[in-house]
């Protein structure tokens, strides 16, 4: 046995500038990719806007117009996250694109963060469109502070629902992705009072709603306009969302390590 030299690359020091640059580019191109993918951008932005045009303007100059402005903002964020991460990652994995990226030195966090940030950007577009419709057609009065609060609460939803999207991406057969997501997303939002005020839903649905993450998310947004269900403090809703996030990420991590071991 001969002793041989092994070529060792000097450990490249990848600093903050490198990671910031990768995250910036990844996010920019992820957003562009989604925006140009009309199936995604039209449905994710189109549905909340269309629903608000219908239900918000029918009830213009009433409390409902304000209620629905908050609830459809949440509905938009949840949709963007579930489709953007859930269906997006499942598809990219199936097509081999994710594997090619994993064979590059791309930091994994950049991939997930870019998708989450892009979805949040879509949600901001939705919040702005809904606000414009509300102010013009819906007869909604709101202060600048209320608008900023609404944008902030909507953004906070990016983390729990991106986590849920990530978990779904591991569970779904990629070709059935969008269908399965709709089957979860639409009934879940409806039963949480995001489509129409929760107090006009059947009683049993109102009782079951606190089991849904979208209910707690919606309550936080509705609280801005004073429409949250009485009797529960806001910190309970925050805790519910934090707990939900941990559950989703934990399950996703478990599935990920299992699939790594099998790969």
């Amino acid at each position, binding site marked *: 046995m001969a002793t041989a030299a*092994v070529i060792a*690359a000097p450990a490249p020091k990848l600093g903050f500038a490198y990671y910031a640059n990768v995250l910036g580019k990844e996010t920019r191109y992820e957003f562009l990719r989604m925006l140009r993918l009309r199936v995604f951008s039209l449905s994710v932005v189109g549905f909340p806007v269309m629903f608000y045009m219908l239900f918000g303007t029918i009830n213009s100059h009433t409390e409902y117009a304000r209620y629905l402005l908050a609830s459809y903002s949440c509905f938009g964020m949840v949709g963007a996250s579930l489709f953007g991460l859930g269906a997006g990652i499942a598809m990219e994995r199936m097509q081999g694109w994710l594997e090619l990226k994993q064979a590059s*030195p791309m930091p994994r966090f950049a991939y997930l963060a870019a998708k989450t940030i892009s979805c949040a950007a879509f949600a901001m577009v939705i919040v702005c469109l809904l606000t414009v419709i509300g102010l013009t057609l819906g007869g909604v009065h709101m202060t600048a502070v209320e608008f900023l609060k609404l944008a902030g609460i909507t953004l906070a939803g990016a983390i729990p629902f991106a986590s849920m999207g990530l978990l779904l991406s591991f569970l779904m057969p990629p070709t059935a992705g969008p269908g399965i997501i709709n089957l979860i997303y639409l009934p879940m939002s409806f039963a949480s009072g995001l489509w129409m005020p929760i107090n006009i839903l059947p009683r049993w649905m109102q009782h079951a709603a606190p089991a849904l993450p979208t209910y707690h998310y919606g309550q936080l947004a509705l609280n801005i306009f004073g429409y949250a269900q009485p009797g529960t403090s806001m910190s309970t809703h925050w805790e519910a969302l934090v707990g939900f996030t941990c559950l989703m990420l934990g399950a996703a991590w478990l599935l990920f390590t299992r699939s790594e071991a099998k790969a």
Partner: protein
Amino acid sequence: MSATAFASGLQQEPLTPPFKARRGEVIARLHSVTKRYGQTTALEDLNLSLHPGEVVALLGPNGAGKTTAVRLLLGLTAPTSGSVRVMGRDPRDAEARTSIGAMLQVTRIPETLKVREHIDLFRSYYPAPLSAAEIVHIARIEGLEDRLFGKLSGGQKQRVLFGLALAGNPDLVFLDEPTVGMDIESRRALWDQIRLLSAQGKTVLLTTHYLEEADMLASRIVVINKGSIIAEGTPAEIKHRVAGRRIRCITQLDAALLLRLPSVVSVERDREAVLITAAEAERVVREMLRLDETLHGLEISAPGLEDAFLALTGSDAEKN
């Protein structure tokens, strides 16, 4: 990454044939690697070393373990036992992959990004990438930069993927079926680029099911079957594994006499000519020309890589 340091210490098995590559230096290696997926064994105690400047072609029938070997070297999966080292590091470490480039079989990449944007994004992953202009030039995708990826033809997509593999100016390049879907002209152009990579001292590991491609490009061919290496050598050496060369000519000499000539393995009739297989074709031809002045239509050919491959992997194996 132009700077490379040399660290000695790791043991290396003696390699069968010497190559043009600088011997002794190892850029990547699989050391007695076994990989199991549940009950099935994809690789069994496999040893493979790659040396700087080599173009190594990995051949084998479907399911032989080629893809598993490539996935291990790219850090996409971990071995069940044994060790995987690329530039002396574990390729599952992201920083170890900064000097690797890969072209994998991808069914689709995001189609709503422009070629320019894909290149820009991949360049950002590497600490010392090639310039976008260089990538466009090497991959021969001039004029396509502003096209959406989804609007490209199959061959153009392959060229973009080749460009992405080189984005980081890697020392080690993995090309998994690189010329699938390319026309003959693009294929030859890509071969030229692969030769150029090798001339620059870069190492290329190629899997292909075009045996001609392996023959034209590889400095070493490694044939894998059922998770183990069954043959390894230069294309000429591999072809040599099937006995001798073929002589075809029109001659008056009869078959019985021809069979008695030194090193002749078989004699067959092919229409008006005879087909002789012999280990030492030159000696046989010299003798035949001496014995038969009317001999004409002489052709001598080496058995193709395909013959060798089929002989090595068993005739029932599908070629891949």
